[in-house]
């Protein structure tokens, strides 16, 4: 009898201890966030910078939210939509990740967004600019951080027509994002009194642009309107200098990324372009640049630029959303993020997350690259709030409930 009672007591104690461990493990279970970001392919350097920003945002939150540690799980999108969507699916199904961010390439963003939509996970498109992401491809489970091409092009077009020239030749990266930039520039032709002279379509992973540039140089255009990015953009920018394009016409990059200019030698630069952020715009951005260097002395660039900033802002918005929702339930987090205003965003204007298309709205900067050494490589000509150029609901009647 005594042995029986002892057995029961010991069993109960063991069950109690096991239960305590189980409860403890639940309490410290981390919140997993998948970073489907390029480590290879055309946008590898952009991916490296956006991840730096994402990690710094987690650091700003103290590494935890809702009392739970934040765990970032990286997956290389390889700048390939098929590979990225497979890796996103694996994160969701095998690692139980319900929050994902990254992409850079708009095609990748759309593919990963679709996977998340189907799985009920949440995706933050941290550096995708194609207008379709918050337009025809908009999804309830996808948010987009940087300004879309409609905003960037509409913001610059009048200045370009008034100051650079009215005969435009389009150089288009032949995929979703590139086509989006050219489409919006075409939409603005009549509005600003400009004229299309011609267009060349550049396939992804083009290494030599000489044949295209011969056409551009021979066109009689006053402005080359360029929507080409990543390593292809760097090569194109460099070869434009080689072929003396900057002496023949002005070059307007619809989205000018700092790392692309930084990769060139000073004497090779000369383009105009709209930027999502410039590192000297506020003291907070200058300070953020120091943090980037302290955190990652081997970072590809040493200042705050589009990719690191958008990575930081996207992660910050997500963590604030989880905190505001008080839960990791995806629908509740989406609701918390819709209409959110982020004032401590280091920018001249606060960030507003529009509820009807999930587009982040803040500021943008138009500048021209100089030929200085060092990090201050662009002269900012003007900045403007994105809200003045963002599409309205009547222009872009997105239905996120479908």
């Amino acid at each position, binding site marked *: 009898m005594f042995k029986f009672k002892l057995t029961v007591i010991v069993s109960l104690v063991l069950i109690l201890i096991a239960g305590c461990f189980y409860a403890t493990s639940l309490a410290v279970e981390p919140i997993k966030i998948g970073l489907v970001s390029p*480590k*290879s*392919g055309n946008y*590898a*350097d952009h*991916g*490296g910078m956006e991840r730096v920003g994402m990690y710094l945002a987690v650091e700003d939150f103290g590494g935890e939210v809702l009392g739970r540690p934040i765990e970032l799980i990286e997956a290389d999108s390889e700048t390939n939509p098929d590979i990225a969507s497979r890796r996103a699916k694996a994160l969701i199904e095998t690692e139980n990740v319900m929050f994902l961010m990254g992409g850079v390439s708009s095609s990748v963003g759309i593919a990963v967004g679709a996977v998340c939509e189907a799985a009920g996970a949440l995706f933050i498109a941290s550096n995708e600019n194609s207008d379709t992401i918050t337009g025809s491809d908009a999804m309830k489970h996808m948010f987009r951080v940087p300004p879309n091409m409609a905003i960037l092009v509409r913001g610059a077009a009048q200045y370009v027509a008034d100051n650079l020239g009215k005969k435009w030749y389009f150089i288009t990266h*032949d995929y979703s994002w590139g086509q989006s930039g050219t489409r919006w520039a075409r939409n603005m032709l009549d509005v600003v009194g400009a004229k299309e002279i*011609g267009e*060349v*379509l*550049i*396939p992804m*992973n083009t*290494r*030599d642009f*000489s*044949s*295209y540039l*011969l*056409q551009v*140089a*021979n*066109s009689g255009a006053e402005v080359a309107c360029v929507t080409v990015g990543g*390593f292809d953009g*760097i*090569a194109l920018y*460099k*070869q434009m200098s*080689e*072929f*003396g394009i900057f002496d*023949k016409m002005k070059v307007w990059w619809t989205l000018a990324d700092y*790392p692309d200019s*930084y*990769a*060139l*030698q000073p*004497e*090779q630069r000369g383009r105009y372009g709209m930027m999502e952020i410039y590192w000297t715009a506020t003291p907070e951005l200058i300070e953020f640049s120091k943090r980037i260097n302290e955190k990652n002395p*081997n970072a*590809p*660039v040493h200042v705050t630029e589009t990719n690191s900033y958008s990575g930081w802002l996207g992660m910050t918005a997500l963590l604030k959303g989880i905190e505001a929702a008080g839960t990791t339930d995806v629908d509740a987090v989406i609701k918390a993020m819709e209409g959110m205003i982020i004032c401590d965003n280091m920018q001249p204007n606060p960030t507003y997350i529009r509820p009807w298309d999930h587009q982040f709205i803040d500021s943008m900067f138009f500048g021209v690259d100089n030929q200085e050494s060092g990090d201050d490589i662009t002269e900012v000509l003007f900045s403007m709030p994105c809200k003045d150029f963002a599409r309205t609901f009547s222009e872009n009647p997105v239905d996120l409930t479908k």
Partner: protein
Amino acid sequence: MDMNVSLVLALFFNGIVLGLIYAVVAVGFSLVLGVAQVINFSHGLLFAFGAYFFWSISNTAGFWIALFLSPILVAIMGLLIELLLVRRVYGQDPLFGLLITFGFALAMEEVIRMIWGKVARSVSTPAFAQGQLFIGDIIYSKYRIILAIVSLFILLLVWWVITRTSFGAIIKAGMFDSEMISALGHNLPLLRTGIFVIGAFLAGLAGVIAAPLWSIKSGMGTDILMPAFIIALIGGLGSIKGTIVAGLLVGTVTSLAVLFIPRFTDILPYLMLIVVLFYKPKGLFGEVTVLGEVRGE
């Protein structure tokens, strides 16, 4: 489409320039495949290392030292690759050589990223080659014209060595019957090592001359490998004349195609390969087929 004659001529000329550059990349690949009978998919990697060495050395020691040293460093890399990897697959199924060199190249691409980072690098053209020249109404890069002349010189030098020297005679004989070379008292392993090192040197040299043209990025070796492979096959294994002709053909067709069918320029070299091999399995000037060569048939 607004086509004028001077633009077409300019694109044709540009195609010749591009073709000569591609031929310099391809000739080393073709020699290694023809003589050592190895499909060396690390050839693109060596091209990339040439560009990266050039970037690093030119930033510290200047253009001319970088130009001299970079291909030599790549040749040393080629020697190590041959001694440690490729030598083990001589005489075996050609897939072994392809797989081992391809796997090595993928791994080394990651090493490039670790050493030089993920960001693209840029090299200025030397001061004497900067600027543009006018060819009729068309503005053209001075550096590319110089590059075309240098490329032609390199190709002619290689052709002269292969066709006019006793060393070249041994190389050509080795393409047909490597065992006979041994039987005649020549050191076949040394010959194969020598050819591999020469191929690596040429790849590194091509990387050096291409560095000021194209952005230097970790994947640039993979980008150039397929054009080199296609040109080597179209021209015919081990045929310098074939490599030059094939390079010019691919360069001019893809350059002109930008004017008419820009979305399909990438697939044109592959279509050309299919057509050529359909009618001439040994390539335009080759004397053995690819698989026949590496299987010793």
